[in-house]
């Protein structure tokens, strides 16, 4: 029995100009405990962890480590205390080797050869083998996470912070990660596990602190709770789900035939002979760990990249491979990209100007001149129809929260009445309410007879809204099957590449 918890936070408060990210947050993690920090997107989990790891400083509150008050002014100080962190978006340098990456995060200088052998030793002893001389950009996402974990383990941490570690893993890789974490906990390492996935938290964690809107909304023993009770703490109400009523699909609207395309990104993934058809009135989902060719596939469909062979992409029956994005839009294609700020919307421009971005064809431009009244009206009605929380149609896009901006972009594209709609990561980083609204909008679009293609990393989402599913792995697409015939185990093994090619 230890007298003090390993880490205790008292009244941590952090304010950014537009939001209060943490509001008097208290949290305790004991030795060898796996503690969940649960909350939906924007609840303040990442900010709190950055404070613990010394990346940012709290405006108020105290941190105690093993019962002693401490000020953690930098990640180096955090590491000296024995805190390690595995970031959600990996903190690795692509053009450097594993060993170089690790040496950058170590506070002691070690000759490269000695470090390399120590990396091999530690990684193998935890069942996470990695080659220290490999360049990071050649590694898969799972392997990169391994590098991050090994990097922490090399410093024998007392507390390991894992920020949404499973969002990029296949279900099988999640199993392996959990084994590793349990093993660490049994060796008295504390783990702070940040997640918004209730099943995982209930399976893995001993205790949980739930954040909502920057405040602690409750603490719990996850195993003793149900998904519903945890969700209520997280969202402050009941989780609603959207429903997909079975429906007969119509004619093929989007067809890919033998689509092969070399990536322009030196670290990207090339597409190999992809076949896919999406029909009117159905939603087809593509699962897969990101980095397996998703961005290349999307660019090839949207027309942001043209394909040499016109016939390999056809939209509503027209061979479109050589058309540019504007021409494909004229055929009835709409597209919601993963990056909202800077791609789906121009950050500094008003919502009215952002309506013009793709909706110019909806009567917002006449004789080459912008009809600003019409653009404002379009933006205003989109804001109303999709419950976008914004000052007005003249507010700049970057003043909106992620969820509200996504609703605006989805709304803009949906209101163009597309024949084919392509959406990438529709609810990534979006709060639960907005996610529900967006999913429903996609289902309504399907029900009105559009062909919808969704690429997502969230398997729950794909199961909730898709009629058929496929998996993308290393630039190759699996066959497409009705959702009911794709159990999660099968999907998982396909995501690891185990499908007939």
């Amino acid at each position, binding site marked *: 029995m230890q007298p003090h918890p390993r880490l205790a936070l008292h009244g941590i408060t952090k304010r950014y100009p537009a939001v209060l990210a943490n509001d008097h947050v208290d949290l305790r993690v004991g030795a060898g405990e796996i503690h969940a920090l649960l909350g939906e997107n924007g609840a303040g989990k990442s900010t709190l962890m950055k404070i613990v790891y*010394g990346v940012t400083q709290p405006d108020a509150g105290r941190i105690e480590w093993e019962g002693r008050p401490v000020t953690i002014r930098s990640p180096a100080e955090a590491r000296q205390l024995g805190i390690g962190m595995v970031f959600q978006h990996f*903190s690795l*340098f692509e053009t450097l080797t594993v060993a170089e990456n690790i040496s*950058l995060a170590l506070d002691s200088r070690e000759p490269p050869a000695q470090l390399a052998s120590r990396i091999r030793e530690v990684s193998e002893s935890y069942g996470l083998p990695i080659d220290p001389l490999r360049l990071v950009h050649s590694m898969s996402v799972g392997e990169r996470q391994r590098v991050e974990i090994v990097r922490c383990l090399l410093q024998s941490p007392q507390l390991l912070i894992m920020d949404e570690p499973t969002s990029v893993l296949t279900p099988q890789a999640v199993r392996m990660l959990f084994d590793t974490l349990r093993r660490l906990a049994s060796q008295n390492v504390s783990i702070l596990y940040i997640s918004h996935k209730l099943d995982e938290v209930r399976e893995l964690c001993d205790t949980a602190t739930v954040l909502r809107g920057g405040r602690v909304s409750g603490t719990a023993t996850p195993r003793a709770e149900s998904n519903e009770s945890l969700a209520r703490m997280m969202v402050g109400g009941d989780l609603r789900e959207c429903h997909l009523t079975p429906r007969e699909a119509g004619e093929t609207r989007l067809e890919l035939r033998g689509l092969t395309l070399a990536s*322009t990104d*030196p670290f990207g993934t090339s597409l190999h002979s992809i076949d896919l058809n999406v029909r009117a009135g159905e939603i087809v989902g593509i699962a897969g760990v990101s980095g397996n060719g998703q961005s290349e596939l999307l660019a090839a469909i949207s027309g942001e990249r043209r394909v040499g062979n016109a016939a390999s992409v056809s939209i509503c029956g027209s061979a479109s491979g050589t058309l540019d994005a504007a021409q494909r839009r004229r055929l009835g294609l709409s597209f919601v990209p993963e990056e909202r700020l800077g791609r789906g919307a121009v950050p500094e421009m008003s919502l009215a100007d952002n309506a013009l971005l793709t909706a110019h064809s909806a009567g917002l431009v006449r004789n080459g001149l912008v009809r600003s009244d019409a653009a404002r009206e379009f933006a205003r009605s989109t804001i109303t129809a999709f419950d976008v929380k914004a000052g007005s149609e003249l507010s700049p896009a970057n003043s909106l929260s992620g969820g509200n901006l996504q609703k605006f972009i989805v709304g803009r594209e949906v209101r163009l009445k597309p024949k084919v709609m392509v959406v990438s990561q529709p609810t990534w980083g979006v709060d639960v309410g907005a996610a529900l609204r967006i999913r429903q909008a996609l289902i309504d679009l399907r029900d009105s007879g559009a062909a919808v293609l969704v690429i997502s990393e969230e398997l729950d989402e794909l199961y909730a809204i898709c009629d058929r599913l496929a998996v993308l792995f290393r630039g190759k697409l699996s066959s497409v099957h009705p959702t009911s015939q794709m159990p999660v185990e099968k999907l998982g093994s396909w995501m690891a590449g185990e499908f007939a090619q």
Partner: protein
Amino acid sequence: MNIDTLILIFASTVAAATPLILAALGVLVNERAGVLNLGVEGMMLVGAVTAFGVGVTSGSLFLGYVAAMSAGAAMALLFGLLTLTLQTNQVATGLALALFGVGLSAFVGQPFVGLPIERVPAVPIPLLADIPVLGPALFRYDLLVYLSIALYAAVSWFLYRSAAGLRLRAIGEAPGVAHSLGYPVVRIRYLAVMFGGATSGLAGAYLSTALTPMWVEGMSAGRGWIVLALVVFATWRPLRVLLGAYLFGGVTVLQLHAQGLGVDVPSEFLSMLPYLATIVVLVLICRNPKTILLNQPASLGRSFHPDG
């Protein structure tokens, strides 16, 4: 053509390349840290006028060089203050620095126009300098020429062999990641930018005390811009900077000797050669966008703010 002429052409190629090497190696380091400073022309000119002014007034070229490096670094510090601390656009600020440097050097240099200065003396390396042919071709230069080679070795070692160099490269690749690991991104960028400024200042000093020992307004004649192109051409690698600089030096010198060699082309067209060559090499190296993507520091030219 006799051997003496060849040696002369070779030696003047080396001399013409030296300021390019000095400046480009510094610029290389600051670009590897992710900072794009287009103000090299301005820093070179300020370095040139400072070295000349201090050299003439104090009678000590050494003092002149120290002053030129400090002046270049001070200009770079100004750039750093704006781009790194105040987050201004790097392209616009670099342009401003170039224009400012042209104006400032012309303004301060007014009293020095037309004054003579003693050319920096050659320092033959004992014994080696007496070897026939090789001696005069390789071992009878002034100290800055030797220094440029030493700087090449030092920069190569720093970037690829030292822990500090690894950090610098990491910061240029992904400053956000480096920050989350706890590296003082802004401070390291300041140092890198000032290093670029110091070597650009020294490059300028070489122009006004060795290559053409005098002060003339705008005497760098676009070399600062050529240096920037050279770093792209070298795909941000020191050895290629060295080779590229000698190539450019050769083009410049060819233009001077062309008439002697009986080429009957108006001098203006010969003078265009270095600029045309710059465009040609840029086309050659940028033709394949992957070459640039693979080699360019990923964060080059982008602002970084620690609080996101």
